[in-house]
């Protein structure tokens, strides 16, 4: 019997080795959007197909509520256990050492693959000259209108407002005792900042200097004028009440329930609104945001997939990122989840061109600045400092200049402290 023991041990060891050899590599995948119902069918199909093609790799989605997404990522990254594939505020994450440079993988790809992304699009995914993410999808912001409410107010959907003055004329006609033209966003997420930036740009203003070392919200008179106009929509009675608690979710709810007639949002909001209220499908139209200067840019939010610095399987993670960035899933994301393509070889794709609203968003996006802005502390200032200033100004409009002057000083100090 005694002689059997080593043999049994060897057999068990072999079986254990064989079992572990068959264990697939597990890659965790975390983006803020996996919990969004409009995207769920797409990401599930993406994973299923990838795993079928790559039996040795399993993708494990990490479902996190949008507002907890960054926090969870940071906590995991600090413990060096961050999910391998992540979509996060790229510059901030790269600056903090949470992400892996991808140049090695990117440069090894054939030129044809690399040509699918413009330099401008890739620049949003770089930090200090190194590539930290592959842009997977984007969202160009535009003004979205409820056609029925516009028509009911005696306005012509074919002639949407082009200037702020036009917009105010429309806003007054679209507002009533229990409904409003639009919603001003002041809730505590960076969406508040996105909208504020667009209004500033629409007046020829700038929120920061060119190298992002100085804030100019109040210093630039055009910026201050835009801030006062935009936040003043609440005081003027043409924006929904409670702006300090209004964010993407509340804004789209108000629009879906026809409490507001227009909202500044991205292409994906159409899917959200149609999902919340199917009767709204086909009843929306889109136009560039009103502007006081010619060729005012809008904002395109770029979501890039990155590999976390602690990922033990970067090759497999890159393989999945490439798979997810493929044409098939780009089209699926656009059609099902209303997420715009970031590849420049998709604009003429029949599936993209066949959707007039998407085509219009793509056209509006031709004059857009990429977001997030390139600062390593962007995640903090966009969701905290700027939002706090917006909230304070909404609560005390007469102090707007003072509040944004303080913000300039606070942000400039932080930006120089990086």
């Amino acid at each position, binding site marked *: 019997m005694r002689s059997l023991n080593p043999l049994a041990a060897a057999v068990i060891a072999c079986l254990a080795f064989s079992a572990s050899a068959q264990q697939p590599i597990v890659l965790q995948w975390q983006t803020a959007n996996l919990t969004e119902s409009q995207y769920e069918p797409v990401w599930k199909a993406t994973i299923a197909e990838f795993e079928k093609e790559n039996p040795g790799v399993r993708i494990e989605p990490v479902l996190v509520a949008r507002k907890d997404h960054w926090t969870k990522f940071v906590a995991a990254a600090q413990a060096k256990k961050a999910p391998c594939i992540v979509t996060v505020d790229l510059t901030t994450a790269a600056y*903090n050492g949470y992400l892996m440079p991808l140049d090695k993988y990117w440069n090894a790809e054939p030129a044809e693959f690399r040509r699918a992304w413009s330099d401008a699009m890739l620049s949003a995914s770089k930090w200090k000259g190194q590539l930290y993410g592959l842009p997977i999808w984007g969202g160009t912001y535009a003004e979205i209108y409820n056609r029925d409410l516009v028509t009911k107010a005696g306005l012509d959907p074919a002639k949407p407002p082009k200037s702020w003055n036009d917009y105010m004329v429309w806003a007054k006609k679209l507002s009533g005792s229990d409904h409003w033209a639009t919603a001003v966003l002041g809730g505590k997420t960076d969406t508040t900042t996105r909208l504020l930036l667009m209004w500033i740009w629409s007046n020829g203003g700038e929120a920061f200097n060119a190298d992002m070392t100085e804030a100019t919200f109040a210093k630039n008179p055009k910026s201050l004028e835009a801030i006062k106009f935009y936040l003043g929509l609440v005081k003027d009675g043409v924006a929904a009440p409670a702006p300090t608690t209004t964010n993407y979710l509340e804004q789209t709810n108000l629009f879906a329930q026809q409490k507001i007639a227009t909202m500044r949002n991205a292409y994906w909001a159409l899917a959200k609104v149609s999902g919340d209220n199917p009767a709204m499908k086909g009843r929306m139209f889109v136009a560039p945001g009103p502007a006081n200067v010619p060729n005012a840019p809008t904002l395109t939010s770029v979501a890039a997939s990155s590999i976390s610095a602690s990922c033990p399987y970067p090759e497999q993670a890159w393989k999945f990122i490439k798979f997810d960035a493929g044409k098939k899933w780009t089209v699926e994301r656009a059609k099902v989840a209303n997420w715009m393509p970031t590849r420049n070889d998709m604009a003429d794709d029949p599936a993209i061109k066949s959707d007039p609203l998407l085509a219009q968003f793509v056209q509006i996006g031709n004059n857009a600045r990429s977001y997030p802005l390139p600062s390593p502390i962007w995640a903090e200032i966009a969701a905290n400092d700027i939002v706090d200033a917006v909230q304070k100004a909404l609560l005390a409009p007469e102090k707007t200049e003072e509040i944004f002057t303080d913000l300039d000083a606070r942000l400039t100090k932080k930006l120089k402290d990086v």
Partner: protein
Amino acid sequence: MFLFLCAVVLFPLAHAFWTSLLRVRGLSSRFVGAENYQHVLTDDAFWHSLGVSLTFTVACVVLHIGIGLAMALLIDELRFARTALRIAFLTPWMVAPAVGATIWLWLLEPQFGVVNYLLQAAGIVSGPIAWLGTPTLAFASVAAVDVWRGVPFVMLLMLAGLATIPREQYEAAAIDGAGGWQRFRYVTLPNLRYLLIVASTLDIINTIRHYDIIGVMTAGGPAGATEVLPVLLYNTAFRGNRFGEAAAIGVLLLLIVLAFSIFHIRLTRPDRGAR
């Protein structure tokens, strides 16, 4: 036992203190001595948050104790359905704070929330109220939710205290002609005095380090009106990525809680109870 204490208390505390002496940026850090403390203590945001924390704590503890005691007295007087009522009143305390806060967040939603709907339907208000949209209302709302959640614990303690008061004392007071208020003033309160102090101290410790309800409902907004110290700590660490400063805030918060804890321990030490 000592090893266990080291693992779950001393090591995390020492690590937090060490972190408070570092300038942490993501995965890199360097020693900066007391710089984080200096920065925190000269930052208006800290003193503002401390003020909000103290106001929130005092308001909530006073209401917890007052309402908790009143409810305990009410239930103690009942002859029927005491157990059922006890369980019913305990429900808010049993619900996870984040879950309760999320429920209230939707109840208080300005346009589609049930609270505004009921108030408007009853003709009490003419338009929707932004419960979490202005500093005063937001503060009152989160305090109200905290009271909703915190009262049952005090009620439970008081019920236990009431059960220990000898009935003879009430009978003697009745014979002496004492009315309801006098029985409460001269029999109930003196007997509950010690328990009230203990409950208040424990409640202060619990409330001042409270994060979840405010974190979920307002995240400290609007414009910092509800940014209590734990929320400031969280925002500094996870939104601001300034872990060193956040650790310094944590250590300062710990000192505040520690002061109340020492008071509590001194109050409840056995030799004092024997006296």
